[in-house]
């Protein structure tokens, strides 16, 4: 038996291809939206993997350091190192800021870390790790910095000595790594005016500035200009299976919050990007409805243009099923062309997106099946019209 749908598609292939391309761009956008979500999840997982931590220790009753602000003292790390099961531990700070670079502003997450400890980037693609105590930085390539570039962070300038890749925050901002001491200064220290203001206030406080007790005022003022806060301590345990045990122990004895990799992944993937995921989900639903409406409209219009031929086919004894199958195949054909175009388009434009877009093969397979289902659903309207055609129209 002849494939009526195949012949019709071949006969007017230009129309099908052009229509399929239009639909394909829409499918491309849909696949990209799914890719944006996957990219966000992957960024979050990369953030956790690249930190090299098994347990994140943060301020009590917070879900920091990525989802909520968290401040703990930087000497907590020493007490943690003394706990059973803890192999390594290091202070880290995180803060997001706008960094000016060659006349452009780049949004980046500045990470304060200790060299050779958890929190340091796991790999470099150029340059070297930090070797000096101050004013050196490692930047993710997405920041646009090159080796030797100077970065202004708050009061100081830092020289880029290394470049890393896929080191981004949960929001997709590329990271800049600097020494923990520099980061503490940048994050927690006040500006000069504020320091001066505090000094005057302290000096005017008779309870602190006592003429009979020299040295108190200076000691208090010294504490006001030094920072011993960090956002979190990253802990590596001896054997990852003991993570939960160590985390429980930290919660119980140190009065701090401790998250294992699983718990932190839940915060980042389930809670932090939940709203974005819903937003993308809404887009996907709307795009699916729009795609279905477009396919339905196209197939319906194409069917209306063939009413006479359908009447003739029915008159000469073609089964209703054969006619319905023809329309269904055309809708599927359109969906197939659209999907191929969409997949190619998404593959080409995904790397251009500012944030990571992850096009997973599994999503493509699901997208393909959903496209065909939508096309099948959308063809029902045209099939209803075709089946209602009176064969008598051919001779009236």
């Amino acid at each position, binding site marked *: *038996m*002849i494939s*009526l749908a195949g*012949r*019709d598609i*071949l*006969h*007017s292939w230009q129309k099908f291809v052009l229509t399929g391309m239009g639909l394909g761009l829409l499918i491309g956008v849909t696949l990209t939206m799914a890719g944006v979500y996957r990219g966000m999840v992957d960024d979050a997982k990369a953030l956790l993997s690249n930190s090299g931590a098994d347990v994140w220790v943060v301020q009590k009753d917070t879900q920091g350091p990525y989802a909520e602000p968290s401040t703990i003292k930087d000497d907590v790390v020493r007490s943690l190192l003394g706990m059973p099961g803890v192999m390594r531990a290091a202070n880290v700070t995180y803060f997001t800021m706008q960094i000016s670079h060659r006349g452009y502003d780049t949004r980046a997450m500045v990470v304060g870390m200790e060299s050779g400890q958890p929190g340091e980037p796991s790999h470099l693609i150029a340059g070297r790790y930090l070797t000096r105590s101050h004013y050196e930085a490692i930047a993710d390539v997405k920041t646009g910095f090159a080796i030797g570039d100077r970065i202004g962070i708050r009061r100081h300038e830092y020289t880029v000595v290394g470049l890393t890749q896929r080191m981004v925050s949960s929001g997709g901002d590329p990271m800049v790594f600097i020494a923990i001491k520099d980061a503490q200064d940048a994050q927690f220290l006040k500006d000069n005016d504020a320091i001066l203001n505090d000094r005057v206030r302290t000096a005017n406080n008779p309870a602190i500035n006592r003429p009979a007790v020299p040295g108190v005022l200076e000691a208090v003022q010294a504490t006001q200009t030094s920072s011993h806060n960090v956002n979190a301590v990253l802990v590596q345990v001896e054997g990852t299976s003991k993570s939960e045990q160590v985390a429980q122990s930290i919660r119980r004895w140190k009065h701090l919050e401790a998250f294992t990799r699983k718990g932190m992944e839940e915060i980042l993937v389930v809670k932090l990007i939940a709203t974005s995921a819903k937003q993308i989900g809404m887009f996907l639903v709307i795009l699916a409805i729009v795609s279905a409406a477009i396919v339905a409209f196209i197939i319906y219009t194409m069917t209306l243009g063939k009413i*006479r*031929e359908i009447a*003739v*086919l*029915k*008159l*000469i*004894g*073609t*089964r209703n099923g*054969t006619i319905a199958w023809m329309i269904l195949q055309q809708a599927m054909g359109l969906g197939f062309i659209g999907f191929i175009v969409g997949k190619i388009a998404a593959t080409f434009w995904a790397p251009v997106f500012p944030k990571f877009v992850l096009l997973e093969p599994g999503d493509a397979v699901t997208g393909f099946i959903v496209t065909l289902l939508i096309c099948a659903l959308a063809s029902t309207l045209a099939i209803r019209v075709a089946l209602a055609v*009176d*064969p*008598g129209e*051919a*001779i*009236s």
Partner: protein
Amino acid sequence: MTNTPQTPRAGGIMIEGLRKVYGQGDMAFEALKNVNMTVAGGEVVGLVGPSGSGKSTLLKCLGAIIEPTAGKMTLGGDVIYDHGWKIPDLRTLRRDRIGFIFQAPYLIPFLDVTDNVALLPMLAGVGNLKSRERALELLKALDVAHRAKAEPSQLSGGEQQRVSIARALANRPPVILADEPTAPLDSERALGVMHILNQMAKQSQTAIIVVTHDEKIIPTFKRIYQIRDGETIEVKGEGRSVD
């Protein structure tokens, strides 16, 4: 003139007391009142009548597209309708027992000439190869075999009509219904079509009814049924030769 049905020869048409009423109650309209008609196998009969006389309704009843309200109809020796009873599968009946030729050829635009003709045997379950062989035979007989691979849009009006005749004959039906088959053609081509129809009727013993207003071809019929106000009257035609 006669109004009495006769038993058809093999492959013919016989209609007795056919009625068709549209609507019900006060809205009822009797399109066919008492139609009696006999067409023998191998015979080409004309059906003429003014607009609104019931020609299209009769053609639709004959083509198993609509059901008559009353009466009996036999196609190719098989009873199709008999006072309320009807053959169960009208679609298969149309496919296997009735050939249709329309005023416009209505060829399927996305199939080439061969497949337009071969489609019918394929729909009836004949294999692709055999269907195409049969189609080529018919196209050869109708002198359009040289356009076998062409698309319908590439054919002239006359060629298209010959292809539509080939399509109507593809399943070797005992009955062919032709609705104004020569309307868009000039005299020469119109008489050419009538020649083909007469030839095919004789060769395959097919009963052919030609609905027409075309003055050019009316003299070619030996018998003509006139339909007026839903009733048929048989008149003798001139039977002018088209050979």
